[in-house]
């Protein structure tokens, strides 16, 4: 089977400082990869380098496109990459306001990607927006409300709906549960787990919360100082960590 994403030796520097370096892995269709590590370890830099928000200084990010098969997205043209970002890729930001249009209604937020790829039937756009509100457990009656009137958890669920409505094949998520209350986090995690299973989503999830990856990720990469220090099946890495840093990370969680 062809990997959906092949990451080869990706590196991103900020001047002399390492953002992330020497990162390589394959992601297969339907797989969820978790990336964990403490703050400043390079998780967001890596995710943004993979998603095309940052241009890596080295390496390849090869995506299995629908029409041409595996293509290096780092060297593809910007129009192609932007097209990918609104069709086969999705990006869920930690702060919902970075991923939503706050001055546009919930329905308009969900409908934007549909309209971006050429849907020109108001009735069907609205129907799909309503359907997706339901799927992320937001009452359909809120369809014309702006996200500024929503709670943090609802905003995050709306952001997820807005991203998934076009059936992307790869979802990037940066701390999707970060900044939310614990009970709200739990509900969001449940929802995400349901969607991942139901849609067979492939995803790369960045988090500093090991509970998130335990629930969602098939595989895990542990980062420290911009490097991947450990990499394996989630249960294996969490239950039998090999690297001293991972052991520390796991034990600090277990103590809580």
């Amino acid at each position, binding site marked *: 089977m062809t990997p959906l994403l092949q990451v080869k030796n990706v590196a991103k520097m900020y001047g002399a400082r390492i953002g992330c370096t020497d990162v390589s892995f394959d992601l297969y269709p339907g797989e969820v990869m978790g990336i964990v590590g403490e703050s400043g370890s390079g998780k967001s830099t890596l995710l943004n380098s993979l998603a095309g928000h940052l241009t890596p200084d080295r390496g390849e990010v090869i995506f299995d496109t629908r029409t041409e098969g595996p293509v290096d997205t780092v060297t593809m043209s*910007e*129009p192609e990459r*932007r097209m990918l970002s*609104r069709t086969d890729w999705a990006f869920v930001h930690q702060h919902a306001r970075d991923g939503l*249009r706050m*001055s*546009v*209604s919930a*329905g*308009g937020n969900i*409908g*934007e*990607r549909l*309209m*971006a*790829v050429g849907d*020109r*039937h*108001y*009735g069907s*756009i*609205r129907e799909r927006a309503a359907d997706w509100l339901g799927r992320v457990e937001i009452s359909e009656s809120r*369809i*014309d409300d702006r996200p500024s009137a929503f709670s943090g958890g609802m905003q995050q669920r709306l952001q997820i709906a807005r991203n998934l409505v076009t059936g992307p094949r790869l979802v990037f998520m940066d701390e999707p549960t970060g900044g939310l209350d614990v009970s709200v986090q739990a509900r969001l995690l449940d929802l995400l787990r349901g969607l991942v299973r139901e849609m067979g989503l492939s995803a790369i999830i960045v988090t500093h919360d090991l509970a998130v990856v335990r629930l969602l990720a098939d595989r895990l990469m542990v980062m420290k100082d911009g490097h991947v220090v450990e990499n394996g099946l989630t249960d294996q890495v969490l239950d039998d960590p090999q690297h001293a840093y991972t052991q520390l990370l796991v034990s600090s969680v277990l103590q809580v």
Partner: protein
Amino acid sequence: MSDYNFAYLDEQTKRMIRRAILKGLAVPGYQVPFASREMPMPYGWGTGGVQVSAATLTPDDTLKVIDQGADDTTNAVSIRKFFEKTAGVETTEETEKASVIQTRHRIPEAELTEDQILVYQVPIPEPLRFLEPRETETRKMHALQEYGLMHVKLYEDISQHGAIATAYAYPVKVEGRYVMDPSPIPKFDNPKMEMAAIQLFGAGREQRIYAVPPYTQVVSLDFEDYPFEASKAEHACDLCGSEHSYLDEVILDDAGNRMFVCSDTDYCRSRREAGHSGRLSEEAA
């Protein structure tokens, strides 16, 4: 006219503006940046349109200036006077006699010809601005034809008002390529933009010029189930009886009596002169 160069601007500036106009005509609907000059009038008075007119006029031209369809508003009068003084060109109120027409907020009712140029005053040239404030991003969206946001705006309209409520500056797609703001004309005028005359758009403060060449396709954006409608008030003109012209509503008295009259004053007058009349013709005469 003596202290000024013809039409106020110096020849080098006019050449620079003409280059922008030609580029605009070559790439219909594309916003061409230009170095807008200080004009002896405030921005709200259509300095962009004035500069385009200045670069377009020749001594043989006949100029007409309209504001909301009327030739006699302060704005129209002062711009007309400005060019009478600085260019010494003939001016007229009759659409058919004009070779250059500068306008704010309307397209004349009379069909324009290949011998005419229509110059629009534009306040905000960027149709994507209201949802995407970043200039770098809107430029990229135009370059890559990422126009989904325009439909988000129309979607919002329908979800809030049950119909597309945008009545002015209704966005269009030009020749299947660039999405363009037609300036704040009523959407009733949008279908007229597929015309024989050259259409030039000048935004002074925002320093942009764009253009629609003759016989260019101009399509108003819409949804399949909410098609574009060039709507107007459901009345005939109370003075000339026209059922096909864009109407202004005029309040007559405190009792709430009102009348509808053509916003294009020259069109209404010429119809009345040709013997047409409306509901209130006697009283108004």
